[in-house]
């Protein structure tokens, strides 16, 4: 089933993006939505019915390389793909009806193509399929980003990530001699340079997901439309990073450095996300911060507690997307006001919206408890509290804080658009599908805490930080990378060019050879003078030479 859906969607997506034109913008987008919905329903039906189908296409069959494209429909694959379908569907829906989205057809088709690439990555049973799909996800993500600056950083980070992954796959294949993921554990026995492989893998994952230190690329995406930003945060390269981590998980244990590195960076990512969500004024960057927090939660639980990957993925993707939708709804309600510092007192204008947002938030908290608590109860509580702390802080500012908004914004306050409401409701509904009352006490506690935090507003002292331009604009890691990597490389390049090309080759070797030839020419030209005496000398020398040779011969 997955194979069929990938095939149909790939054809539709490819045709749609090639033949994109303003005339067919809406109709193609709408048809894209219909097709994706149909596929989604078929897939979810099969998932619920537990249908399994094997699909393997023999792609390459060289002596050196046998690669099969695997798109088998298994429960695990369904579980991983379906959340992506959900997000894709709502992204398409939002794109169709949101007036800010201009190139609807192109976006929808790219989302569909990306969906195919993600499906390929999830179903991959060999290194190459995953590598190819990861690269394709990068390409589609690149196309979805419609801002040049954002594209630049995205492309460089992902190029590095893909090349690192490429190296990991090359090395693994070189030592193990098999592309199959099942053979990965053998690398521990057969392979060498384990530390390098594991660190490269960790590096690739960090870059893809945008973990701490490598998160700038995600923040740069905040210039995009909210819908595109939300989609990219959860269905593009960060998701690819997650899938890579999942598939290559055995490799992280071949070195003592890789997993601790990932663990530390995951924790730091949570911190970084909390910081951004609380301190950064820009609502889209807050969304990125929240996404980071959720990715951090997911990774910590997966790495430390070996939580179920499918569930962790659901929390990250659907939960993160829901958070983004919440902020998107606020952003929409405030007539696209970007800065939280210019909001406040919105509760009176969008009461229904607030209630809906709270419901959505608690649905997420419920699902987080369901996912994380079986692995570690305390940690799940901590995660939930942290999320409540952040959201309560933001909601307090936006809904109950002193209003800094324009009169125009206040006057035009409206409840979120129906498609946003639909998306939030649908995702919240998904979170309540199983075990309704397992964590009702905890949820009650969270609710009280949430109310308390709204009322007390404990982090009110950090509110003035919105006005600190240094904090809002700073891009520390970019400066650090620039200082530590780019600048030295540039200087090294210049020095090498000057030393080797210019001084050594141009000035020394080439000039010396020219001078030597010139010397030879000048030397010989002295013997090319038209003079009888010189001619006579040559004659005598020739005689002399024969005489000498004769003398030597006689001897």
């Amino acid at each position, binding site marked *: 089933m997955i194979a069929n859906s990938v095939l149909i969607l790939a054809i539709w997506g490819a045709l749609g993006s090639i033949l994109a034109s303003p005339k067919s913008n809406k109709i193609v987008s709408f048809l894209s939505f219909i097709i994706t919905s149909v596929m989604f329903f078929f897939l979810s039906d099969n998932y619920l019915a537990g249908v399994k189908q094997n699909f393997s296409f023999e792609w390459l069959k060289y002596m050196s390389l046998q690669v099969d494209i695997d798109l088998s429909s298994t429960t695990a694959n369904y579980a991983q793909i379906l959340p992506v379908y959900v997000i894709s569907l709502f992204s398409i829906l939002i794109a169709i009806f949101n007036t800010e989205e201009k190139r609807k057809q192109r976006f929808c088709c790219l989302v569909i193509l990306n969906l195919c690439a993600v499906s390929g990555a999830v179903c991959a049973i060999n290194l190459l399929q995953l590598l190819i799909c990861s690269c394709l996800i990068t390409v589609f993500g690149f196309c979805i980003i419609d801002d040049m600056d954002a594209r630049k950083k995205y492309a460089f980070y992902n190029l590095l990530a893909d090349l690192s992954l490429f190296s990991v796959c090359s090395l693994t294949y070189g030592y193990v001699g098999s592309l199959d993921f099942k053979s990965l554990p053998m690398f521990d026995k057969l392979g060498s340079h384990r530390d390098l492989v594991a660190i490269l893998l960790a590096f690739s994952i960090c870059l893809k997901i945008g973990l701490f230190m490598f998160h700038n690329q995600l923040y740069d995406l905040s210039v995009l439309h909210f819908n595109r930003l939300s989609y990219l945060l959860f269905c593009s390269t960060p998701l690819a990073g997650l899938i890579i981590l999942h598939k290559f998980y055995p490799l992280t244990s071949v070195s003592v450095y890789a997993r601790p590195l990932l663990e530390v960076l995951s924790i730091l990512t949570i911190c970084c996300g909390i910081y951004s969500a609380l301190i950064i004024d820009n609502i889209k960057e807050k969304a990125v911060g929240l996404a980071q927090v959720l990715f951090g939660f997911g990774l910590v639980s997966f790495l430390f507690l070996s939580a179920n990957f499918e569930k962790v993925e659901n929390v990250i993707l659907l939960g993160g997307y829901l958070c983004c939708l919440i902020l998107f709804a606020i952003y929409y309600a405030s007539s696209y006001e970007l800065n939280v510092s210019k909001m406040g007192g919105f509760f009176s204008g969008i009461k229904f919206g607030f209630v809906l947002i709270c419901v959505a938030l608690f649905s997420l908290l419920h699902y987080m408890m369901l996912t994380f608590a079986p692995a570690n109860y305390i940690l799940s509580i901590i995660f939930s509290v942290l999320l409540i702390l952040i959201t309560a802080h933001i909601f307090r500012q936006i809904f109950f804080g002193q209003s800094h908004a324009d009169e125009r914004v206040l006057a035009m306050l409206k409840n979120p658009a129906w498609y946003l409401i639909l998306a939030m409701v649908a995702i919240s509904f998904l979170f309540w599908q199983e075990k309704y009352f397992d964590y009702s006490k905890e949820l009650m506690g969270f609710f009280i805490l949430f109310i308390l935090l709204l009322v007390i507003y404990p982090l009110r002292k950090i509110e003035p930080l919105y006005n600190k331009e240094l904090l809002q604009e700073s891009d520390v890691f970019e400066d650090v990378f620039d200082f530590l990597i780019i600048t030295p490389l540039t200087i090294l390049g210049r020095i090498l060019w000057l030393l080797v090309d210019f001084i050594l080759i141009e000035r020394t070797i080439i000039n010396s050879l020219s001078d030597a*030839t010139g010397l*030879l*020419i000048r*030397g*010989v*030209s002295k*013997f*090319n003078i*038209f003079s*009888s005496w*010189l*001619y006579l000398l*040559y*004659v005598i*020398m*020739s*005689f002399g*030479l*024969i*005489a000498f*040779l*004769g*003398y030597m*011969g*006689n001897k």
Partner: protein
Amino acid sequence: MLAKIITLSPEFFLVFALPLMGIISRYRSSKTAKTFYSVSKVALLFSMLATIVFYNRSPMPDFIQNTTYSTLYKVFIDLLAFVTFFLSCKWFLNKNRSSALYYAIGLSLILCLNTMISAVHLGVLVGAYFVASLLQYFLLQLSAEDYEYEDAGKRYFLFMFLFSALMLIGAMWVHAQAESWNYNKIAIYYAKHGWNMKDIMAFASIILGLLFLLGIAPLHFCRIELSGVSILPVCMLCNLLPIVAAYAVILKLLTDVFVSMQVIYLPFLQIIAIVSLLWGAISAIKEDNLRRMFGYCGIYSLGFIILGILPFSNNGITSSFVYLVSYLLTMWGIYTVFFAFKSNGEYLTSLSDISGVFSQKPYASVLLTVFIVSLAGSPPMLIFLGKLQAVDNMIINHAYAEVIVAMFASLLILNAFFKIIRTMFFEIRTKNFDRADRGIYFCLFLNIIFFLVGILNPALFIERFELLLKPIMR
């Protein structure tokens, strides 16, 4: 007697043409260069045919003997002369000058050179050498209107005379020792009695005279100097024909007469070949006069020819001859292009004169490039074979230092060649070039046909050359 006279017909045809030209010059009113060219053409043609017909008949076996070897060289000289005369006719017509003297001296020169090639008598050789050298001096006089040739002419005369005298002395010494002028007897004498320092000096006198005619370094001076001060027809005639004769004679003397002196002349030839390679290559880079530049290239090529022939193996003789033939074919082509390069009726000599010539004369420029590539010994041109043989010989003799020098020289000479190509193709045209005669293009076309045949089926030439060169092979 009649049979002997008939056998001498190649020489007679050439001789008869001389008074005929005198009569025409004296009595015919409408005489042009074409008239004399026609006479020379017919004389040459008949002489060549007769040479081929009587290839193994010797009218005076004690003095001159015709073999396939001599016939090959003589026919080759005739062919080159034929082309030279044809092109010269265009030159004289363009300049509107009398060509009687040129053709007359030219025919005489051919006669002398042919005699040298066929000679088996040292006296005849020296005599023919002297007359040939003198005739070249007379040819130089024709350049009086165009160039200040006096100093160069005097120097040439002096050294021509010196070498003729030395050759005569050398020949007389050899005669005194061997009591014969005949090549075979001299060879037998030296084989039997060995040689001393005086014999060596006599040998040196003879061989250096011939090397002077060949124009190899360091005895190349007059050839180079005269190339720059002689008119194009003379330059072509004196730079192509004597080389063939000198080469043929040297080869014959070294393999037939002075064969016992190998221990001296092999290293000597090796040294002068290397000197020629380097001297020719280095000097050509600096030279701006095109004719002198190609003169130096000639010295370089002769260096390779000599290196290729050593130590006179059958393969070496064949491949060197192939090199020589290809070199002369190439030079024929190059001189033909020179005939095509003229501006306002003046034939161009300086490198700067042909700046950007490609834009106006693309075919001639491209063909000159082909000839230059051939001269550089680049495959698949036939000269490459000679170069290959030369390097192969050096490797067989473990003369690796010489290989390095030869390769260094071949790199250096490329600078000169590419200088010409650069000037023709890459620089901006400064002159307006005259339209070239169709005959010149025909000549070039003919030359290219030879080239193509040589490239596609070299065996066609080489196998025949091998057969004809048998008399001097071991």
